[in-house]
């Protein structure tokens, strides 16, 4: 764990257990994620992926164990601190969770407004992020008028607008068709390559097994396997999978160029 060649740990959970009533959802889970790392959290529905993520963004507190995110420690958190923790995280979900009553711009801007940022800075940064996710031209549209992929890109823009060090993604592609799924994953890689650590939960092992990223398997509340691939495998496999996803989607685009 103190290997100086390993990236600095940006967040981790230690001996984490969570129980709802009699049901053990997580059992002695240990997981650390390094700075700028990309980790897939894979497991069937009900394995405890969402609960693990909720514990990391401290929507729930563990029955046992500890969550450490940056300088925030779960056993030492006051309610007030949680807001400040959330500002250091970006979070996206399967169901996008956009504010239906505001346009795209405001949906992204809200994450900065809560920090008390000036209007000038908000405008500048939101425009920049919307351009990056390719939705600048739809900034005045309401979320309902957008496609699923576009809505998820709005959510991603909101998640990264404060330049977080960590992005948590809970089944971000669960509601999307394969083509759009590839686009979203590609976008997450792009965000990751800019230095943000990403933890993406998914039930779809097939989807992510060939990207060459670290994959953590979660089953019945315990970590079954933590698979890290070597650098060679990583490069080869990732290229392969972009082709694989592209082929599944049937558009034949070569996504290596975007990387």
């Amino acid at each position, binding site marked *: 764990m103190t290997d100086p060649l390993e990236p600095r740990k940006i967040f981790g959970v230690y001996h984490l257990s969570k129980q709802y009533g009699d049901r053990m959802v997580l059992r002695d889970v240990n997981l650390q994620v390094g700075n700028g790392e990309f980790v897939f959290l894979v497991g069937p529905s009900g394995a405890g992926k969402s609960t693990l993520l909720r514990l990391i963004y401290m929507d729930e507190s563990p029955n046992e164990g500890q969550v450490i995110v940056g300088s925030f420690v779960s056993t030492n958190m006051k309610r007030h601190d949680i807001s400040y923790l959330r500002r250091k995280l970006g979070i996206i979900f399967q169901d996008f969770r956009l504010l239906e009553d505001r346009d795209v711009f405001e949906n992204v801007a809200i994450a900065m407004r*809560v920090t008390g940022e000036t209007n000038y800075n908000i405008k500048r940064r939101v425009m920049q992020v919307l351009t990056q996710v390719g939705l600048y031209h739809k900034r005045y549209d309401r979320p309902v008028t957008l496609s699923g992929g576009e809505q998820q890109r709005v959510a991603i823009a909101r998640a990264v607008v404060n330049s977080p060090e960590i992005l948590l993604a809970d089944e971000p592609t669960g509601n999307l068709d394969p083509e759009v799924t590839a686009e979203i994953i590609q976008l997450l890689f792009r965000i990751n390559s800019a230095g943000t650590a990403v933890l993406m939960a998914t039930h779809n092992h097939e989807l992510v097994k060939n990207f060459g990223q670290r994959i953590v398997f979660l089953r019945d509340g315990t970590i079954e396997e933590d698979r890290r691939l070597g650098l060679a495998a990583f490069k080869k496999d990732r290229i392969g999978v972009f082709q694989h996803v592209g082929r599944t989607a049937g558009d034949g685009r070569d996504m290596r160029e975007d990387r």
Partner: protein
Amino acid sequence: MQESFSTLGRHKAVTFLSVVIMSLSLLVLAVFLLATDNVFTFFERTRQEMTVFVYLSDDLSLSDEVSWATVEDHHKWLLSMEMVEAVEFISKDQAMEEFRNELGEERSVLDVLEANPLPASFRVTLKPEYRDKVNIERFAGAVTTMDFVEEVNYGRDFIEQFASVTRAFLYVDLVLGLIVIVSSIFIIANTVRLTILSRRKSIEILKLVGATNRFITAPFVIEGAFQGGLAALLSLVLLFLVFLVLKGMLPDLTFLGLSKILLYVLTCVMLGAIGSFASLRRHLKL
């Protein structure tokens, strides 16, 4: 601030509905206030009319010329008292005249009288703040001991009854008022809960992106205050309609004064704000 008004704009239908529901529940409070106000006005008016009659000893009132000076003295003495507002002297003849007028048709019965049996008197009006049972009794006690005084009459029975009736009314009114206010708060909190539940998703999202509780609650509290004010105004309009109907049956009925209206609106604004805040705390584990 900016957040809350844009929210109001975004949720016109929900806002309108909750304002209507709130105003209906506030109407009960308003009717209660109107009734209380009018009953107290009536009590106040009755208190205004309270006077104390100080009957003078007959030997004093018989020898007119000699006693004028002393009557003046007594008049001055009464007036010099802190509680006294006005003193009116009623001579034997005036008293007889008034009695005759009161008898009306029957006044001929007085013709058999050889002398005027009625005493002269002072009609004393106390200052408003002293027109209660305790002070009137104190005054009567002090004056009765004087040797020029035959008797003091202040309608003891009436005053005692009046005191117990006002006290009883006050208690009943307080209890009723408490019930009405508590039920208003309950209804407002429930109405606000509807608004909050309808926006639960938005609140969750705000929490996810790191909004502090203050950032989330402030718009709701301001909105609750605003809705409370609107509902208060609407309920006042409804109250005025009720008032117009009742006025036909009770012509003495008066509407709430400006200061009471302001106080009422202010109270409703507070109720709205408090209702919102309490509801948020309860339903959102903020």
